Structures are given as C-alpha cells and as structure tokens.
C-alpha cells in the first residue's frame, strides 16, 4: 500500500509540473538560505581555529569611564476638579551621566590589574595597527597585530608553516613575524614556503617564523596580515599612564565552568581600580564577553550586551521564521486549492473502497515526498552557493562549511510544516461525504 502511494505521489507530482515546481522552489530556497545562514554563523561563532576552545574564552575590549551624579526630577501634575485646582507632586531620585568615555585599554592597566586573575589559565594583551607596505609599487595595507607570546597559547591558529613566537621574542624584542596566507602571497607571490625569509613592515625587517591560515575580518581579535611582538609597538604606548589605550585582552579560563566566574571577576575588579581623573570620572566599568557576546556587540555597536544579544536573536529568529513561514503558507494555499480540485478523485476512491485513513495517508505522503525532494534540491543548492561564495571570496576571508545538523533540523522543520500544511486540507477532504465529493467535482 505504502509503495503504491509513493508511486502514485510521484506520478501526481510529475504530472502537475507547475505546482511541483512552485512548491519545490519554496522548500529548496528556504533550506538553501537556512543552510547558508547556519554555515555563516557556524563559521563566525563555531569552535574552529583559532577559537576551538571558545567555551573557555573571555574578551575584554572596552574600558568605560563615567561621571554620574545624583539627579532629582520633580513632576507637578495639576487637575481642575469642581472649580478647585489640585496639585500632585512626584519626586524621582535617580542618576544622571554627565561624562562618558569608552575606549580600548592601556597596556599598563591590563598588566597591573587584569594579569593573573583567579579562574584564568592564560591571558594575552594585543592591539592592531595598519601600515602601508609598497610591493613592486603596489600599496599593500598590512594589518599588524602586536601580540605577546601568550597570544599563541590563548588562540590556536592553524599554522601552514612554522609556529608562533615565544615570550622571549617579546621581552628581547626579536624582529620576528607570523604572517597570514594572504600576506605570504602578497609578499612572496604564490604559495612557496616563507619561513626564514624577511619582510619589512614600518621600516623594520622581520624574519618570518610562521604562516597562519587567513582569519575572517570579523574576528578582530585574530584577523591580521602580520603578527609581531608587542614590544615593537610605537614608543610610549606600553608606558601610557591612563586606563585607556589601544589594547584588548583575551583570557583563557581554566575550564569552561570557570568562564562565568572569570567574567564576574573582571566586573568586580573594575571597582578596585583607582580612577586617575576623579573630577571628570567617578565610575569604571569593565565587561568580559564571550565570543558570542563579543560578536553581537560588534554587530550592534552602541548597544549594551543584553540588548545586542536580543537584537541578534530577534533578527536571526525573524529571518528564520520568515523563511520557514513563507513556503509553509505557500504550501498550505497550494495544497488547499490542489486538494479541492481533486474532490472527484476523493469521491471515486471512496466509492471504490478507500477509507478516510487511506486518503489522509495518500495526501500526506505526497507532501512528504515533495518536501524531501525539496530538501535534497535545497541541499544541492546550498552546497553550490557555499562553493560559489567561497571561491569568489564574496564574504572576504570567511570560509563557509556546511553544517549538517542545521540542514537536518531545517529539513525536519520543513517536513513538519509540509505535513502540517497537507494534513488539514487532506483531513477535511478525507471526511467529505462521497456523494458531495463527486458532486463538487469540476469534471
């Protein structure tokens, strides 16, 4: 019986080409978008190099200083009742922020107050700066990461050759550099080994000790063309007296369970740090963020972390809902029309011995087959689009990879809605009286 229904469903679908095309298009397009979106988010937020231990990572890239003063707001409401004026006075005591300054951190502040916090296995302090390098008269802006030796222990880069530089290279100010695959191509042309060769950045010659795979531009803590010891940063930067400067910090918590206590520790630590300019600022805020929180606040700049996360989920959730809802509504509307058109068939089948259950199963199976076909097509389209996006580098350094579990969930959701969209009209029609079904027939 089941085999018959499948064969029948296949025959109906192959005969109703336009209907099948419209439905397949909706389903496969949805799955393609969901799969590519998931691949993008997985590439950005998943546990891939250089953040395979992302469940232990905490970033601190903002030092916020404020001057807040008590603020009292007096509200007087007046109402005229029976010729008598009444006054209702409300006094609200709150806070007003007079001064605000948000910036990255100074090396001194990080080194003095945030090094060796409890729950930390390792921490690294780094900042970036771009230098123009001229190669055969062509300008190559080299984004340079000034990092310490711990940087290579906190982040696990994918090395194509060589490795990172040790702590000693930082303290001894050894002119060594790790470059990206793109930089290797720019400096040396092609993919020939570069370790041992020299590159000149900001009028200093550095010896290449390692080459890493490119990192997405959105991962500002790891994206660079060249990584050099932070002791080569411009003079005075490491000795800045204030709390703010160009540096960010990344902490590797001792374990995933230590990540939240570490974030709490960073927030608490802010209360103990003396503010150098108490007349202008009386409050210091430091916030440790996870990879996801860091991504969300980077995406929705100006928003507090909870608001940025809410925006992120709102937009992603809205997009996913929209992309699932559209083909579902499309399927429901097509199914209702299609099944109504088939009232004659329903009447005939019932007359010749079909039970309502048989008809329900038949129509639902048609939908399942259609959805599975759409799913396969969508998967093929997603693979193709990912291949096109990767090879054209349309998303910069972001390399997309198919996330099979998201595809499976997407297929399940579409299957669910596919069945649901067919079930209601099929159920109604399967209960239609045989005489009525035959009379409604357009034949």
């Amino acid at each position, binding site marked *: *019986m089941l*085999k*018959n229904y499948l064969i*029948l469903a296949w*025959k*109906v679908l192959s*005969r*109703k080409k336009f209907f099948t095309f419209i439905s397949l298009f909706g389903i496969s397009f949805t799955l393609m978008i969901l799969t590519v979106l998931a691949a993008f988010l997985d590439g950005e937020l998943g546990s891939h190099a250089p953040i395979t231990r992302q469940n232990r990572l905490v970033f601190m890239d903002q030092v916020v200083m404020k001057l807040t003063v008590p603020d009292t707001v007096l509200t007087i409401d007046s109402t005229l009742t029976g010729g008598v004026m009444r006054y209702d006075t409300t006094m609200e005591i709150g806070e007003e922020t007079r001064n605000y300054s948000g910036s990255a951190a100074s090396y001194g502040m990080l080194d003095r107050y945030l090094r060796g916090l409890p729950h930390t296995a390792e921490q690294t302090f780094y900042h970036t700066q771009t230098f123009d390098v001229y190669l055969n008269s062509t300008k190559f802006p080299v984004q340079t990461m000034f990092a310490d030796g711990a940087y290579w222990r906190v982040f696990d880069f994918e090395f194509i050759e060589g490795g990172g530089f040790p702590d000693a290279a930082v303290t001894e100010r050894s002119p060594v550099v790790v470059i990206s695959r793109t930089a290797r191509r720019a400096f040396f042309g092609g993919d020939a080994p570069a370790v041992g060769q020299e590159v000149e950045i900001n009028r200093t010659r550095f010896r290449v000790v390692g080459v890493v795979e490119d990192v997405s531009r959105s991962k500002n803590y790891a994206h660079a063309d060249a990584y050099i010891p932070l002791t080569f940063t411009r003079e005075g930067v490491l000795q800045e007296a204030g709390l703010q400067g160009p540096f960010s910090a990344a902490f590797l918590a001792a374990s995933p369970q230590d990540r939240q206590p570490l974030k709490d520790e960073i927030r608490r630590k802010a209360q103990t740090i003396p503010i150098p300019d108490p007349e202008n600022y009386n409050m210091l805020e430091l916030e440790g963020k996870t990879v996801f929180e860091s991504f969300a606040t980077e995406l929705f700049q100006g928003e507090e972390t909870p608001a940025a996360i809410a925006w992120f989920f709102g937009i992603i959730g809205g997009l996913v809902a929209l992309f699932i809802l559209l083909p579902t509504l499309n399927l429901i509307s097509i199914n209702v029309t299609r099944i109504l058109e088939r009232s*004659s*068939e329903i*009447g*005939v*089948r*019932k*007359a*010749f*011995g*079909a*039970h*309502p259950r*048989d008809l329900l199963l038949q129509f639902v199976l048609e939908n399942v087959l259609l959805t599975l076909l759409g799913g396969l097509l969508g998967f093929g389209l997603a693979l193709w689009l990912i291949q096109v996006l990767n090879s054209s580098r349309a998303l910069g350094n972001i390399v997309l990879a198919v996330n099979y579990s998201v595809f499976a969930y997407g297929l399940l959701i579409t299957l669910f809605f596919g069945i649901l969209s067919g079930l209601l009209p099929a159920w109604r029609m399967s209960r239609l*009286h*045989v*005489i009525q079904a*035959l009379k409604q*027939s357009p*034949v």
Partner: protein
Amino acid sequence: MIALQDVHKVYRTDTVETLALNRISLRVEAGEFVSVMGPSGCGKSTLLNIMGLLDEPSSGAVSIAGQPIGTYSTARLARFRNEHLGFIFQSFHLINDLRVIDNVELPLIYRRGLSASERRKLAEAALDQVGLRHRIRHFPGQLSGGQKQRVAIARAIAGNPKIILADEPTGNLDSVMGQEIMDILLRLNREAGATVVMVTHDEGIARQTHRLIRIFDGSQVA
C-alpha cells in the same frame, strides 16, 4: 442480491426538508439487469447511491447478498464496496493525472493481499473486456468520451464485483457510443453473470434490460 425494505430518504437543511425516496421496497435478483427511470430529481440517483452504500437511508433497511449493511462501520462498508460493488458514473470520474491502466487498477489498490503483478493482470484483463488494451499508457485527456466510459467500465469490473451500479452511463454519449457501452454492459451481465442496476433517461436503452423500475417523486410507480 439487493433488497431494500421500506427505504425512506429525506434531505434536511435548516429551513427545508426534501423527500427524496418514499417507502421504497424492492429486490434485485442475482444476475438481473435492471434499469431505473424517472424524471430529473425524482430520486433515481439517490436510490442508486443507497443501493451502492454511498448514502444511508433515513429509515428502512438495505441488505446486499444477504448481509445486513445498516450495522456496518465505515471501514467495513468501504471494504464491502471494494469487494462487491463496481460503479460507473455519467461523467466518468477518471483521474486525469493517472494513466488508463492506473485508473483501472485504482479499486485493486484498496484490496488486501493483491500483489502489484496480480493487480496489473486483473486491470489488463478488464481493459481487454472493453477493447482498450492498446490504450493502457494513455491519459484520460487523450481519449474520446466513449473510450473514457469504457475505461470507467473496466475500472468498475477490474475487481470482479458481483454488482455493477451505473448512473446514466450513456448520458454524455451520442447514440452510437451509447449503444457500444450498453453492449458491453449486456455482455458483462450475460457472460460474467454480473448483476447490473442502471439509471437512464433513455427508453430505448432501458428496453434492452430485463426489468424497468419507474420512480416518480420518490415513490416506485412501476
């Protein structure tokens, strides 16, 4: 073979009550070919639908092959129709998306214990009987009206039912085609021993059957 005892059928809406059949009692014996005639709206099709277990009487009893049908569940009724009854409709009611052979196989899909090859053999044999074996791969849209009705007859007889119920099978056809269909039905009755009950408006067609039942305003008048 078919026995109706005091069958009464009333269609009710919120405001209107329409009497379709008024205390009809009749018997159709096994192997009989009976035609039912009467003016439009007199209850002929309702009578046929009740005989074919497609509709229930408001009161009265129906029995087929000695079976008291009134007590049957929906599932048992469906199975009974599948095994004992074949239907032919005025407007053919073929499924346009399916090939001729698949249309003819349709009743056999709902019959338990038949393999695909058995179904195919039965359907081909039925198409042989109506002379359309060569059209098995065609779709209904590619056939003439007469051919469509022959496919509908093949579908009705594919499962070898004892009873064939035909609702104006020649109504949509010209006289030549109509007679061709009538010849097939007569042959099925004569050679296969099928009991046939046929609703018709055509006196000439009705005269070819064993017995004529006349209905007027829901009552049997002859």
